[in-house]
């Protein structure tokens, strides 16, 4: 495993291009595009202000940089560096900006969710969509980029509009039976839309592409409901994480619950492997004592190596007592992700913040629990193989695969707290982002795959 040198970064804005050739990152008002293989700067664009949002177009030809504070969006072309485009939302303001899947339209949401403006890069035409709903996940595109579902709020009722992305024509418009729609997501096959209510009510609605209500699912009443939702890449399962600390898997045939995964703090099943991160005390006489204690305190994790130990079940995990009197309590399943082959589901229960549960979807049981020393910040699956990268805002990155797991210290001068990470589409490298730096981590493809016993399917 190799690491690149450390580059500057701001606002955690660092993204691989969808085709995997480039890497864009923002440093204050500058946008830097690098070649992934050489890491040499290919292009350097200067924006009008500090970039707050950056996004690649789906064809990797354009990059949009949004400066919400100034209500500005700037688009840069990779092929024609001299080409430029600036969209000014003026006094309407800007709170969100995103590409349409075709990479030729930009959807800007104005302040107070007054409307969504669809700007085209091909024609002069501008479309407006009124009454967008201000919610967690109000816009969702199908994976093939053909349709967009948009949550709307009119007359104190929730509606969903389905647009054809090619010409922004309204295809379907229907009201949903929700109190306060919180989010929605297309199934990967683009035929089913999952719509869920806000956390006050556990309600999951499933609509067909043509607006028919396929099913309604509610696990319980009264207490706080859905916290996170994820489709399996095969569209076969819909995983619903909720505030009761459980993940419920709905199947795609009857839309009833197939199974539910509880996240108890005590793991007792002997078939489950519990990996526990343990700090290795540094070898004596290596100058650890020479550090002043204050200095050591400032970098608690950086100096220490850590490794995984297999804890013998039953294991009780470190839990957090959520403050019940506060809004958005830290409890329930807040993070959910299926591996790209749909075989595994990784979850994090927010009141056991140090642990990542990995579930075996074939056997529908808990497979592995990883207990970290620090709260898990983020995790992401390798897009090519069942391999999970985890970061905990420490200077280490953790990798799990069915063969085992490991913790890798990010080398370099000073501290490098990994706040976020993203995989390259080939699964060969990983961008590690800290507050104002980033670096790439290269995983030897042959070695890694051999270790995992997988066939290299790259062409």
């Amino acid at each position: 495993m190799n690491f690149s040198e450390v580059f500057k970064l701001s606002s955690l804005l660092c993204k691989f291009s969808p085709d995997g050739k480039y890497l864009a990152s923002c440093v204050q008002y500058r946008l830097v595009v690098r070649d992934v293989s050489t890491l040499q700067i290919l292009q350097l664009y200067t924006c009008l202000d500090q970039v707050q949002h950056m996004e690649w177009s789906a064809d990797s030809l354009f990059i949009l940089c949004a400066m919400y504070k100034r209500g500005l969006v700037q688009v840069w072309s990779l092929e024609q560096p001299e080409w430029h485009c600036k969209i000014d939302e003026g006094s309407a303001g800007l709170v969100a900006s995103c590409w349409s899947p075709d990479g030729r339209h930009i959807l800007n949401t104005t302040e107070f969710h007054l409307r969504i403006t669809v700007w085209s890069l091909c024609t002069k035409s501008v479309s407006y969509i009124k009454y967008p709903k201000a919610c967690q996940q109000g816009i969702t595109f199908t994976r093939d980029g053909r349709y967009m579902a948009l949550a709307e709020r009119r007359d104190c009722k929730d509606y969903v509009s389905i647009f054809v992305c090619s010409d922004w024509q309204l295809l379907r418009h229907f009201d949903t039976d929700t109190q306060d729609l919180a989010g929605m997501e297309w199934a990967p096959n683009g035929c089913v839309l999952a719509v869920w209510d806000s956390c006050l009510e556990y309600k999951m609605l499933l609509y067909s592409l043509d607006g028919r209500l396929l099913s309604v699912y509610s696990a319980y009443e009264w207490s706080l409901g859905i916290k996170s939702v994820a489709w399996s890449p095969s569209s076969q399962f819909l995983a619903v994480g909720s505030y009761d600390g459980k993940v419920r898997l709905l199947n795609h045939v009857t839309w009833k619950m197939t199974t539910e995964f509880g996240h108890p703090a005590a793991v007792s099943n002997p078939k489950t492997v519990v990996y526990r991160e343990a700090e290795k005390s540094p070898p004596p006489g290596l100058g650890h004592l020479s550090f002043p204690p204050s200095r050591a305190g400032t970098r608690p994790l950086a100096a220490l190596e850590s490794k995984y130990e297999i804890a013998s079940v039953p294991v009780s995990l470190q839990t957090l007592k959520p403050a019940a009197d506060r809004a958005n309590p830290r409890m329930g399943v807040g993070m959910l992700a299926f591996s790209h082959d749909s075989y595994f589901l990784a979850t994090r229960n927010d009141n056991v913040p140090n642990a990542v549960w990995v579930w075996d979807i074939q056997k529908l049981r808990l497979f592995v629990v990883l207990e970290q020393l620090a709260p898990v910040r983020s995790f992401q699956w390798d897009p090519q193989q069942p391999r999970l990268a985890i970061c905990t805002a420490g200077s280490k990155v953790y990798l799990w695969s069915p063969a085992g797991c490991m913790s890798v210290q990010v080398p370099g001068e000073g501290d490098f707290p990994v706040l976020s990470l993203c995989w390259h589409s080939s699964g060969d490298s990983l961008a590690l982002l800290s507050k104002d730096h980033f670096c790439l981590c290269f995983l030897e493809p042959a070695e890694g795959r051999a270790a995992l016993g997988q066939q290299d399917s790259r062409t």
Partner: protein
Amino acid sequence: MGDWMTVTDPGLSAESKNISQYTSETKMSPSSLYSQQVLCSSVPLSKNVHSFFSAFCTEENIEQSISYLDQELTTFGFPSLYEEPKSKEAKKELNIVAVLNCMNELLVLQRKNLLAQENVETQNLKLGSDMDHLQSCYAKLKEQLETSRREIVGLQERDRQLQCKNRNLHQLLKNEKDEVQKLQNIIASRATQYNHDMKRKEREYNKLKERLHQLVMSKKDKKIAMDVLNYVGRADGKRGSWRTGKTEARNEDEMYKILLNDYEYRQKQILMENAELKKVLQQMKKEMISLLSPQKKKPREKADESTGTVISDVEEDAGELSRESMWDLSCETVREQLTNSIRKQWRILKSHVEKLDNQVSKVHLEGFNDKDVISRQDHEQETEKLELEIQQCKEMIKTQQQLLQQQLATACDDDTTSLFRDCYLLEEKERLKEEWSLFKEQKKNFERERRSFTEAAIRLGLERKAFEEERASWLKQQFLNMTTFDHQNSENVKLLSAFSGSSDQDNRTVHSKPQQKKPPSVSHGSPVCTSNVTKSLPASPTLDSCQMSSCVSEHSSISVLNITPEEMKPNEVGRECTNQTWSVASRPGSQEGCYGGCSLTYTSSHVQKDDLP
């Protein structure tokens, strides 16, 4: 006592008692010496008595005292102390005999009284103690009663308290329920209120938004604009099309196409899954049929199985199955048939398996129960011991023969010692004879031992038979199926011959084989069984283990052992004949070789005795 008192002189009443006491003491008859011990407690009073006597009777008043006594005695019903006067004038004369008699009677009476008194006193004491005991008992019981009463009261009190508590709790529960209801109502009302407020707020918000929209958007904000160097081509290279009704229709079409594709894909998947499942089902059915049909033959033979009718169904189904090999035709009837037949077969299989389970468990149970039967290990040990003995005997005989031959040889060589030789020979002969007789005796002992042992073995077999009869039938069937067993037996024969040590014995076994085999040919009923018995019974443990290599064969051999008596009846005589002839034909020097044969006859005869009424 009271009577006594009334009658006696009040002044003397106290003393009179003493009199009777002390007279007996002073003038004790020799026969009543033992009573002195009884009375010894009153000895210290004797002096007083003497003084009293002197007071009662003096020289002067003898007459009066006698008359007084007489009077007293007569009043008590004693004969008079005086002689019956011959005449009226005659003076009353003291009859000494009467006096003595009286005294004696008085003494006896006294003793009786004393005894009675003693008894009464002891009884009194006993009664007193009884009384005490009863009183204490009574007191205790009273106390107990009191405590239990108190306890009852306490419990009642507690019960009452608990009931009170319970009632309170019920009340509380009810209150809580009410509270919950109330809270729920409150929540609901607040929720509605909240929703209402939210709606109101949202409306206001919407109004504001609308207003803002108007304000912000209507004044033609020239800032709201896109500044593009040049427009780029569409990703798909096409030009943008106008929105028309046609495009709308096209979009609809496309959407439905997508949906249709999805459904088709899913249907295909489901079909594939179905086909897969059908295949599995079909295979399962086939396997079930193949599994169930051979087993059904036997039950049908027995005609005791209720499943007999079902089996025919199974075979019918099998026929159907071949007919309906077009599995792709998934019409309802086929499906129903399939599921029904599978269900049926599954039931059969289940019942069969359950039956087997029951049998197994039963056998296990019984196997644990019969501890009195000689264990197999003991059996084997015993046979081993016997074999060892036989071997020893053989060796002894051999050495003897050798010695004999040597002697003979040496005798032939030396002419000079011919005389001695004769003597020696005679002596030797004598000795040999002696040894021979000893040996014979030993042999007999061995035989007896062996016989007793085989008896025990047979008993074991018979006892086993009793509880394994049910199973035996089933096993027999299997056994019959195992036609290869016959060949195994022939191999075992060879093994036997290999095990018997010397060459002449080998010859003998070879000779005896045809003789042995003849009788089985007579009993054509079950040749396998008989041949098996002829070998398995005299078999050494090693042979045993060879034969009983598998559990089934072991059981079957046992069953055979048990079956043979009936089946071997016709050839029994013939076999004994062969054995006899065999033992006769064999040289006396190697008679021990036919132990097995002999024992065989014994066992078989025993079996016959046991089994035939």
